[in-house]
Protein backbone atom coordinates (compact mmCIF):
# COMPACT_ATOMS: atom_id res chain seq x y z
CA UNK A 1 0.00 0.00 0.00
CA UNK A 2 1.43 3.32 -1.07
CA UNK A 3 -0.12 6.80 -0.95
CA UNK A 4 -0.66 6.59 -4.72
CA UNK A 5 -2.80 3.53 -4.30
CA UNK A 6 -4.78 5.26 -1.56
CA UNK A 7 -5.69 7.99 -4.04
CA UNK A 8 -6.62 5.38 -6.62
CA UNK A 9 -9.04 3.86 -4.11
CA UNK A 10 -10.40 7.32 -3.39
CA UNK A 11 -10.88 7.68 -7.13
CA UNK A 12 -12.91 4.48 -7.16
CA UNK A 13 -15.04 5.88 -4.37
CA UNK A 14 -15.58 9.11 -6.26
CA UNK A 15 -16.65 7.16 -9.33
CA UNK A 16 -19.24 5.34 -7.25
CA UNK A 17 -20.55 8.53 -5.65
CA UNK A 18 -20.68 10.28 -8.99
CA UNK A 19 -22.38 7.33 -10.61
CA UNK A 20 -25.10 7.29 -7.96
CA UNK A 21 -25.65 11.00 -8.37
CA UNK A 22 -25.69 10.78 -12.13
CA UNK A 23 -28.46 8.21 -12.11
CA UNK A 24 -30.37 9.53 -9.14
CA UNK A 25 -30.44 13.29 -9.58
CA UNK A 26 -32.88 14.96 -11.89
CA UNK A 27 -31.59 18.48 -12.14
CA UNK A 28 -29.37 18.73 -15.21
CA UNK A 29 -26.76 20.88 -13.52
CA UNK A 30 -26.51 18.36 -10.70
CA UNK A 31 -26.09 15.58 -13.22
CA UNK A 32 -23.26 17.59 -14.66
CA UNK A 33 -21.64 17.97 -11.24
CA UNK A 34 -21.94 14.22 -10.79
CA UNK A 35 -20.34 13.64 -14.16
CA UNK A 36 -17.43 15.85 -13.15
CA UNK A 37 -17.02 13.83 -9.96
CA UNK A 38 -16.84 10.63 -12.01
CA UNK A 39 -14.28 12.33 -14.20
CA UNK A 40 -12.10 13.36 -11.26
CA UNK A 41 -12.36 9.87 -9.83
CA UNK A 42 -11.30 8.33 -13.12
CA UNK A 43 -8.32 10.63 -13.38
CA UNK A 44 -7.26 9.75 -9.83
CA UNK A 45 -7.47 6.05 -10.67
CA UNK A 46 -5.45 6.57 -13.84
CA UNK A 47 -2.57 8.39 -12.17
CA UNK A 48 -2.71 6.76 -8.76
CA UNK A 49 -2.68 3.24 -10.12
CA UNK A 50 0.06 3.90 -12.65
CA UNK A 51 2.31 5.57 -10.09
CA UNK A 52 1.77 2.93 -7.46
CA UNK A 53 4.71 0.82 -8.55
CA UNK A 54 7.23 3.09 -10.12
CA UNK A 55 6.85 6.64 -8.89
CA UNK A 56 5.96 9.65 -11.04
CA UNK A 57 4.92 8.70 -14.55
CA UNK A 58 4.58 11.50 -17.09
CA UNK A 59 2.41 9.56 -19.51
CA UNK A 60 -0.74 9.19 -17.36
CA UNK A 61 -0.21 12.76 -16.15
CA UNK A 62 -0.31 13.96 -19.73
CA UNK A 63 -3.37 11.80 -20.39
CA UNK A 64 -5.12 13.35 -17.42
CA UNK A 65 -4.30 16.84 -18.67
CA UNK A 66 -5.87 15.92 -21.98
CA UNK A 67 -8.81 14.39 -20.16
CA UNK A 68 -9.34 17.51 -18.04
CA UNK A 69 -9.43 19.72 -21.11
CA UNK A 70 -11.85 17.37 -22.87
CA UNK A 71 -14.09 17.25 -19.84
CA UNK A 72 -14.16 21.02 -19.41
CA UNK A 73 -15.07 21.30 -23.07
CA UNK A 74 -17.90 18.85 -22.54
CA UNK A 75 -18.99 20.54 -19.31
CA UNK A 76 -18.99 24.00 -20.84
CA UNK A 77 -20.92 22.76 -23.84
CA UNK A 78 -23.44 21.06 -21.58
CA UNK A 79 -23.88 24.24 -19.56
CA UNK A 80 -24.59 26.24 -22.70
CA UNK A 81 -27.14 23.65 -23.83
CA UNK A 82 -28.75 23.45 -20.40
CA UNK A 83 -29.03 27.20 -20.15
CA UNK A 84 -30.59 27.48 -23.56
CA UNK A 85 -32.96 24.62 -22.79
CA UNK A 86 -34.00 26.31 -19.56
CA UNK A 87 -34.26 29.60 -21.35
CA UNK A 88 -36.71 28.21 -23.89
CA UNK A 89 -38.66 25.71 -21.83
CA UNK A 90 -38.29 26.72 -18.22
CA UNK A 91 -37.34 23.16 -17.28
CA UNK A 92 -34.21 22.10 -15.54
CA UNK A 93 -34.66 18.38 -15.96
CA UNK A 94 -35.23 16.12 -18.90
CA UNK A 95 -38.25 14.35 -17.46
CA UNK A 96 -40.49 17.30 -18.10
CA UNK A 97 -44.24 16.96 -18.16
CA UNK A 98 -44.50 17.49 -21.90
CA UNK A 99 -42.38 14.50 -22.72
CA UNK A 100 -45.17 12.72 -24.58
CA UNK A 101 -45.30 15.42 -27.19
CA UNK A 102 -41.56 15.71 -27.17
CA UNK A 103 -40.90 12.68 -29.31
CA UNK A 104 -39.70 13.93 -32.63
CA UNK A 105 -41.98 16.54 -33.96
CA UNK A 106 -39.43 18.78 -35.50
CA UNK A 107 -37.57 18.76 -38.72
Amino acid sequence: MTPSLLYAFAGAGLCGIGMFGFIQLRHLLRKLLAFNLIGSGTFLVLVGLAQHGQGPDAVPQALVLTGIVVSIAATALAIVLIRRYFHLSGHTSLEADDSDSGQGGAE
Partner: protein
Amino acid sequence: MKRILAVTLPLLASMALVLLLGASLWSIAGSQTPVNLPELLAGKMNESGVNHPVTAVLLNFRSYDTLLEIAVLVIAGITGISMARTASLEDPELRTSDSLLYALQRWFIPLMLLLAGYLLWAGADRPGGAFQAGAVLAGCGVLMRLGGIPLGFLRPGLLLRVGLGLGFAVFLLVAVLSAMAGEAFLAYPPGMTKPLIITIETVLTFSIAMVLLALFVSAPVNDAGAPGEDDS
Protein backbone atom coordinates in the same frame (compact mmCIF):
# COMPACT_ATOMS: atom_id res chain seq x y z
CA MET B 1 -42.41 1.40 -3.06
CA LYS B 2 -41.36 2.68 -6.44
CA ARG B 3 -39.62 5.63 -4.82
CA ILE B 4 -37.64 3.43 -2.51
CA LEU B 5 -36.67 1.20 -5.37
CA ALA B 6 -35.59 4.21 -7.40
CA VAL B 7 -33.11 5.08 -4.67
CA THR B 8 -31.92 1.65 -3.60
CA LEU B 9 -31.22 0.27 -7.06
CA PRO B 10 -28.77 3.00 -8.10
CA LEU B 11 -27.29 2.87 -4.61
CA LEU B 12 -26.68 -0.85 -4.87
CA ALA B 13 -25.36 -0.50 -8.39
CA SER B 14 -22.85 2.17 -7.46
CA MET B 15 -21.79 0.29 -4.34
CA ALA B 16 -21.19 -2.77 -6.49
CA LEU B 17 -19.18 -0.62 -8.86
CA VAL B 18 -17.00 0.66 -6.02
CA LEU B 19 -16.45 -2.82 -4.62
CA LEU B 20 -15.56 -4.32 -8.00
CA LEU B 21 -13.31 -1.39 -8.79
CA GLY B 22 -11.62 -1.70 -5.43
CA ALA B 23 -11.06 -5.42 -5.92
CA SER B 24 -9.57 -4.93 -9.37
CA LEU B 25 -7.38 -2.07 -8.14
CA TRP B 26 -6.09 -4.34 -5.40
CA SER B 27 -5.45 -7.11 -7.87
CA ILE B 28 -3.68 -4.85 -10.35
CA ALA B 29 -1.56 -3.23 -7.65
CA GLY B 30 -0.21 -6.64 -6.72
CA SER B 31 1.51 -7.20 -10.04
CA GLN B 32 4.30 -5.40 -11.83
CA THR B 33 3.50 -3.79 -15.18
CA PRO B 34 5.19 -5.69 -18.01
CA VAL B 35 5.95 -2.50 -19.92
CA ASN B 36 7.91 0.22 -18.20
CA LEU B 37 6.85 3.32 -20.04
CA PRO B 38 8.55 5.90 -17.76
CA GLU B 39 11.89 4.27 -18.47
CA LEU B 40 11.25 4.31 -22.21
CA LEU B 41 10.21 7.91 -21.94
CA ALA B 42 13.34 8.87 -20.02
CA GLY B 43 15.43 7.22 -22.70
CA LYS B 44 13.85 9.28 -25.45
CA MET B 45 13.67 12.59 -23.59
CA ASN B 46 16.73 14.07 -25.30
CA GLU B 47 15.04 13.56 -28.68
CA SER B 48 11.88 15.30 -27.59
CA GLY B 49 13.15 18.88 -27.80
CA VAL B 50 11.92 19.92 -24.36
CA ASN B 51 13.05 19.17 -20.85
CA HIS B 52 9.74 18.65 -19.14
CA PRO B 53 8.46 15.09 -19.62
CA VAL B 54 4.75 15.99 -19.47
CA THR B 55 5.18 18.62 -22.17
CA ALA B 56 7.20 16.15 -24.21
CA VAL B 57 4.39 13.60 -24.03
CA LEU B 58 1.68 16.15 -24.79
CA LEU B 59 3.32 17.90 -27.69
CA ASN B 60 5.66 15.36 -29.13
CA PHE B 61 5.14 11.69 -28.28
CA ARG B 62 1.35 11.84 -28.12
CA SER B 63 0.81 15.06 -30.03
CA TYR B 64 -2.03 13.51 -32.05
CA ASP B 65 -4.07 13.23 -28.85
CA THR B 66 -3.46 16.89 -28.19
CA LEU B 67 -4.43 17.85 -31.72
CA LEU B 68 -7.75 16.00 -31.43
CA GLU B 69 -8.27 17.40 -27.96
CA ILE B 70 -7.98 20.95 -29.28
CA ALA B 71 -10.46 19.92 -31.95
CA VAL B 72 -12.85 18.88 -29.17
CA LEU B 73 -12.40 22.29 -27.55
CA VAL B 74 -13.07 24.03 -30.85
CA ILE B 75 -16.22 21.95 -31.35
CA ALA B 76 -17.46 22.96 -27.93
CA GLY B 77 -16.68 26.56 -28.81
CA ILE B 78 -18.48 26.33 -32.14
CA THR B 79 -21.58 24.80 -30.60
CA GLY B 80 -21.40 27.41 -27.88
CA ILE B 81 -21.37 30.35 -30.24
CA SER B 82 -23.98 28.71 -32.42
CA MET B 83 -26.28 28.94 -29.40
CA ALA B 84 -25.23 32.49 -28.65
CA ARG B 85 -27.71 35.21 -29.27
CA THR B 86 -25.89 37.95 -27.47
CA ALA B 87 -27.25 41.05 -29.07
CA SER B 88 -24.98 43.36 -27.22
CA LEU B 89 -22.07 42.69 -24.97
CA GLU B 90 -22.71 45.82 -22.97
CA ASP B 91 -25.79 44.35 -21.45
CA PRO B 92 -26.53 46.12 -18.18
CA GLU B 93 -27.36 42.82 -16.54
CA LEU B 94 -23.79 41.72 -16.88
CA ARG B 95 -22.14 44.75 -15.47
CA THR B 96 -21.50 44.26 -11.84
CA SER B 97 -20.82 47.48 -10.05
CA ASP B 98 -19.22 45.71 -7.17
CA SER B 99 -16.38 47.66 -5.64
CA LEU B 100 -14.72 44.45 -4.53
CA LEU B 101 -14.78 43.16 -8.07
CA TYR B 102 -13.40 46.43 -9.29
CA ALA B 103 -10.49 46.22 -6.90
CA LEU B 104 -9.96 42.61 -7.81
CA GLN B 105 -9.85 43.60 -11.40
CA ARG B 106 -7.34 46.32 -10.98
CA TRP B 107 -4.93 44.17 -9.13
CA PHE B 108 -5.65 40.75 -10.51
CA ILE B 109 -5.70 41.24 -14.22
CA PRO B 110 -2.10 42.39 -14.60
CA LEU B 111 -1.01 39.70 -12.18
CA MET B 112 -2.93 37.04 -14.06
CA LEU B 113 -1.54 38.15 -17.39
CA LEU B 114 1.90 37.91 -15.90
CA LEU B 115 1.12 34.46 -14.53
CA ALA B 116 -0.17 33.27 -17.89
CA GLY B 117 2.99 34.45 -19.58
CA TYR B 118 5.12 32.74 -16.99
CA LEU B 119 3.21 29.47 -17.26
CA LEU B 120 3.58 29.46 -21.01
CA TRP B 121 7.27 30.21 -20.81
CA ALA B 122 7.89 27.65 -18.10
CA GLY B 123 6.15 24.86 -20.00
CA ALA B 124 9.23 23.66 -21.80
CA ASP B 125 11.27 22.99 -18.68
CA ARG B 126 8.99 23.01 -15.66
CA PRO B 127 5.37 22.35 -14.85
CA GLY B 128 3.17 24.66 -16.86
CA GLY B 129 2.25 25.02 -20.46
CA ALA B 130 -0.40 26.03 -22.91
CA PHE B 131 -3.42 24.66 -21.08
CA GLN B 132 -2.69 26.20 -17.75
CA ALA B 133 -1.67 29.49 -19.32
CA GLY B 134 -4.73 29.48 -21.54
CA ALA B 135 -6.99 28.82 -18.60
CA VAL B 136 -5.47 31.68 -16.62
CA LEU B 137 -5.82 33.96 -19.62
CA ALA B 138 -9.45 32.94 -19.95
CA GLY B 139 -9.93 33.62 -16.24
CA CYS B 140 -8.60 37.10 -16.90
CA GLY B 141 -11.18 37.60 -19.61
CA VAL B 142 -13.95 36.35 -17.36
CA LEU B 143 -12.99 38.88 -14.71
CA MET B 144 -12.88 41.67 -17.27
CA ARG B 145 -16.24 40.68 -18.60
CA LEU B 146 -17.83 40.48 -15.18
CA GLY B 147 -16.51 43.96 -14.60
CA GLY B 148 -18.35 45.17 -17.66
CA ILE B 149 -15.35 45.83 -19.84
CA PRO B 150 -16.66 45.35 -23.36
CA LEU B 151 -14.71 42.63 -25.03
CA GLY B 152 -15.60 43.48 -28.59
CA PHE B 153 -13.73 40.60 -30.11
CA LEU B 154 -16.08 38.14 -28.46
CA ARG B 155 -19.03 39.28 -30.50
CA PRO B 156 -20.02 36.35 -32.70
CA GLY B 157 -18.30 37.34 -35.89
CA LEU B 158 -15.41 36.57 -38.10
CA LEU B 159 -12.84 37.75 -35.60
CA LEU B 160 -14.11 35.40 -32.93
CA ARG B 161 -14.15 32.49 -35.34
CA VAL B 162 -10.61 33.25 -36.47
CA GLY B 163 -9.58 33.31 -32.85
CA LEU B 164 -11.26 29.97 -32.18
CA GLY B 165 -9.62 28.27 -35.10
CA LEU B 166 -6.21 29.91 -35.13
CA GLY B 167 -4.36 27.73 -32.65
CA PHE B 168 -5.79 24.58 -34.09
CA ALA B 169 -4.99 25.70 -37.64
CA VAL B 170 -1.37 26.42 -36.80
CA PHE B 171 -1.02 23.07 -35.05
CA LEU B 172 -2.55 21.31 -38.03
CA LEU B 173 -0.37 23.19 -40.47
CA VAL B 174 2.76 22.18 -38.57
CA ALA B 175 1.50 18.59 -38.60
CA VAL B 176 0.90 18.42 -42.32
CA LEU B 177 4.05 20.34 -43.25
CA SER B 178 6.11 17.95 -41.17
CA ALA B 179 4.38 15.08 -42.95
CA MET B 180 5.42 16.56 -46.25
CA ALA B 181 8.97 17.20 -45.15
CA GLY B 182 9.54 14.08 -43.10
CA GLU B 183 8.05 10.65 -42.85
CA ALA B 184 4.89 10.90 -40.81
CA PHE B 185 2.10 13.18 -39.72
CA LEU B 186 3.27 15.31 -36.80
CA ALA B 187 6.86 14.08 -37.01
CA TYR B 188 8.72 17.34 -36.48
CA PRO B 189 11.82 17.70 -38.65
CA PRO B 190 14.99 17.22 -36.60
CA GLY B 191 16.39 20.41 -35.17
CA MET B 192 13.07 22.21 -35.51
CA THR B 193 11.40 20.44 -32.63
CA LYS B 194 11.81 23.01 -29.91
CA PRO B 195 10.86 26.12 -31.90
CA LEU B 196 7.87 24.31 -33.36
CA ILE B 197 6.66 23.15 -29.96
CA ILE B 198 7.05 26.66 -28.55
CA THR B 199 5.15 28.15 -31.50
CA ILE B 200 2.33 25.65 -31.12
CA GLU B 201 2.14 26.27 -27.39
CA THR B 202 1.93 30.02 -27.83
CA VAL B 203 -0.89 29.99 -30.35
CA LEU B 204 -2.67 27.26 -28.43
CA THR B 205 -2.63 29.40 -25.31
CA PHE B 206 -4.56 32.14 -27.10
CA SER B 207 -6.95 29.76 -28.76
CA ILE B 208 -7.70 27.86 -25.58
CA ALA B 209 -8.38 31.13 -23.80
CA MET B 210 -10.62 32.24 -26.66
CA VAL B 211 -12.66 29.05 -26.66
CA LEU B 212 -13.18 29.06 -22.93
CA LEU B 213 -14.12 32.72 -22.95
CA ALA B 214 -16.44 32.23 -25.90
CA LEU B 215 -18.21 29.49 -24.01
CA PHE B 216 -18.57 31.74 -21.01
CA VAL B 217 -19.87 34.64 -23.04
CA SER B 218 -22.12 32.63 -25.31
CA ALA B 219 -24.37 31.46 -22.54
CA PRO B 220 -27.72 32.68 -23.79
CA VAL B 221 -28.54 35.26 -21.19
CA ASN B 222 -30.40 38.01 -22.85
CA ASP B 223 -32.09 36.65 -25.88
CA ALA B 224 -35.80 36.31 -26.10
CA GLY B 225 -36.39 35.16 -29.63
CA ALA B 226 -36.06 31.50 -30.36
CA PRO B 227 -34.23 31.26 -33.64
CA GLY B 228 -35.91 29.41 -36.48
CA GLU B 229 -37.98 27.28 -34.16
CA ASP B 230 -37.99 23.72 -35.41
CA ASP B 231 -38.20 24.30 -39.08
CA SER B 232 -35.88 23.59 -41.90
